[in-house]
């Protein structure tokens, strides 16, 4: 056990990456799924062990191949990374558990092993981003996860998945290449790729202009990958046409992992070294965050397809996360990191409920779902709980981070009230678009006569409710996300007040 403990930080990558090629060979029905789910659960257990370590306040470091940093590649897991690892591995495990029936419905049996192998590669790549402390390693893991997630999206049964994934590929690659240019410029000036080492060596750089350009490239490139408004155009279609199980997985964590690198770079690497960088960061991203919240919520209000509506809502939630971060205060940053966790819970529950609906309804257009609550009462129950959490009703997880966000805005005095107004307006729009779905599914009569209850498969429904109840549990006692988020925020803000 002690040997395992010592190698714990590297395991979230090694385990799924080794199993991924083996999964392809598991042809018999259901076996590939079982192997992928088992692997993903194992990654979840590892993430829990790492999070337990992070809660004790130790940053867990690991030198790959025992080559010491800065020459070797270093891995490090702090509270921020552990928080996102929990979201990532949890989302993957629950989406796989719940998604069995949906995958069987949407993918032919012989394509499933390939699809699940790509799934594990996404898991390995995203975990790699979270544990790595080396700028170039992050790029490689980013591309591993991106290439595999294009395959996940392309697995969708609708042919419109193809143009959607092409757009995703083009924009994802441009984002990653911008990031590559950025770290190239940083390497040019500092001669190192280790994040902590860069931070120290930038202080000796006399000409800071290339670093400033690098900060610009990295922020915009990662903004593209994180679907920051107005760079989000790839997201709605990609999420909409992906297989439902993959949407649950990607919506819960893919964009947040890009935000993780964005925040790590802008705060840990550049913040203390570029003069007035927090002002540049806030002045650039806060308007985008505000616009994102308002515009994406407004689009969601009028979107006729509920899966696409939730995808637009995701763009708005990225806005909340960025808004918290761009306040550059401890409260704001904590709110931002908490919202990553809470949004993953809420959106996970919502997309799972959509997956349940899709088991019984051929179309996810709102008009086709009239009276759905009579046919699938439990599914719609979970949808409502997830929706309440998305809106931020007290007693659900979404409330805690919005409360922190509002408290942080009020620290700004007069101008802060404008931000409060934006947050409240965004939440009101969320009330409206969730209510539209509730109204149609609960109160509108279906066109064809009386219908009998036909719920989603039991396993899928159980997991959906598990996530819905997790929204309530973490709303009533938000100890886990609060402590990890606060630890992460302190680390990001460093010496600053």
């Amino acid at each position, binding site marked *: 056990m002690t040997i395992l403990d010592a190698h714990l930080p590297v395991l979230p990558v090694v385990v799924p990456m080794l199993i991924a090629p083996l999964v392809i060979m598991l042809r018999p029905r259901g076996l590939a799924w079982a192997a992928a789910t088992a692997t993903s659960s194992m990654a979840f257990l590892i993430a829990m062990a790492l999070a337990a370590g992070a809660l004790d306040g130790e940053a867990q470091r690991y030198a790959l191949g025992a080559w010491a940093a800065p020459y070797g590649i270093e891995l490090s897991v702090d509270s921020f990374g552990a928080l996102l690892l929990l979201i990532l591995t949890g989302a993957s495990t629950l989406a796989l558990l719940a998604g069995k029936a949906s995958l069987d419905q949407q993918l032919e049996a012989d394509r499933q092993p390939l699809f699940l192998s790509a799934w594990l590669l996404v898991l390995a790549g995203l975990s790699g981003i979270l544990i790595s402390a080396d700028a170039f390693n992050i790029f490689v893991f980013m*591309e591993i996860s991106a290439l595999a997630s294009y*395959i996940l999206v392309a697995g969708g049964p609708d042919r419109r998945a*193809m*143009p959607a994934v092409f757009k995703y*590929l083009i924009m994802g690659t*441009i984002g990653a290449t911008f990031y590559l*240019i950025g770290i*190239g410029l940083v390497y040019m000036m500092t001669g190192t790729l280790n994040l902590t080492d860069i931070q120290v060596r930038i202080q000796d750089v006399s000409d800071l202009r290339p670093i400033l350009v690098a900060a610009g490239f990295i922020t915009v490139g990662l903004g593209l990958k994180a679907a920051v408004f107005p760079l989000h155009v790839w997201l709605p279609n990609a999420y909409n046409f992906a297989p439902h199980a993959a949407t649950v997985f990607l919506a819960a964590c893919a964009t947040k992992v890009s935000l993780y690198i964005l925040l790590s770079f802008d705060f840990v690497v550049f913040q203390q070294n570029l003069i007035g960088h927090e002002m540049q960061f806030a002045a650039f991203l806060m308007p985008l965050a505000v616009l994102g919240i308002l515009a994406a919520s407004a689009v969601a209000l009028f979107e006729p397809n509920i899966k696409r509506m939730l995808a637009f809502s995701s763009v708005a939630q990225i806005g909340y996360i960025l808004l918290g971060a761009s306040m550059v205060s401890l409260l704001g940053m904590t709110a931002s990191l908490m919202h990553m966790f809470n949004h993953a819970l809420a959106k996970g529950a919502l997309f799972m409920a959509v997956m349940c609906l899709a088991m019984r309804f051929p179309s996810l257009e709102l008009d086709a779902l009239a009276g759905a609550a009579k046919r699938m009462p439990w599914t719609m129950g979970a949808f409502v709980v997830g929706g309440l959490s998305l809106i931020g009703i007290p007693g659900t997880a979404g409330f805690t981070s919005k409360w922190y966000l509002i408290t942080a805005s009020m620290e700004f005095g007069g101008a802060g009230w404008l931000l409060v107004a934006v947050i409240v307006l965004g939440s009101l729009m969320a009330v409206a678009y969730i209510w539209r779905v509730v109204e149609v599914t609960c109160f509108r009569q279906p066109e064809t006569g009386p219908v009998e209850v036909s719920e989603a498969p039991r396993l899928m429904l159980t997991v959906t409710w598990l996530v819905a109840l997790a929204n309530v549990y973490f709303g009533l006692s938000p100890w886990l996300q609060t402590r990890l988020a606060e630890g992460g925020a302190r680390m990001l803000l460093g010496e600053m007040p």
Partner: protein
Amino acid sequence: MNLLGLYNYWVFAVLLMIGFYAVVAKTNLVKKLMGLSLFQAAVFLLYITMGKITGGTAPILQKGVSDAVFSNPLPQVLILTAIVVGISTTALGLGIVVRIQEEYGSIDEKDIQEIDRR
């Protein structure tokens, strides 16, 4: 620091912009991918250039030579990885274009939008 001394960097910027223009402006999906490849190739040039030292040689220790100036090998190694990533991206992109052609009978963005709207 004269302008011509930065020749490689000029080429990097121009190639980058040509590639980017093709990605944004062309509607043919294969041309878009060509632009994307060019865009990535420009970045390879940036990395290779920064590793070069005037008069520098390959970083190999030789008997009897103690004052050799070595070029930095690390950017080249990094870019080897990035080239592999670029090839995979292009291959996957072309694979998707083939599927689009099968499904839609066209690889032009405008046609595809037109077909989807119907």
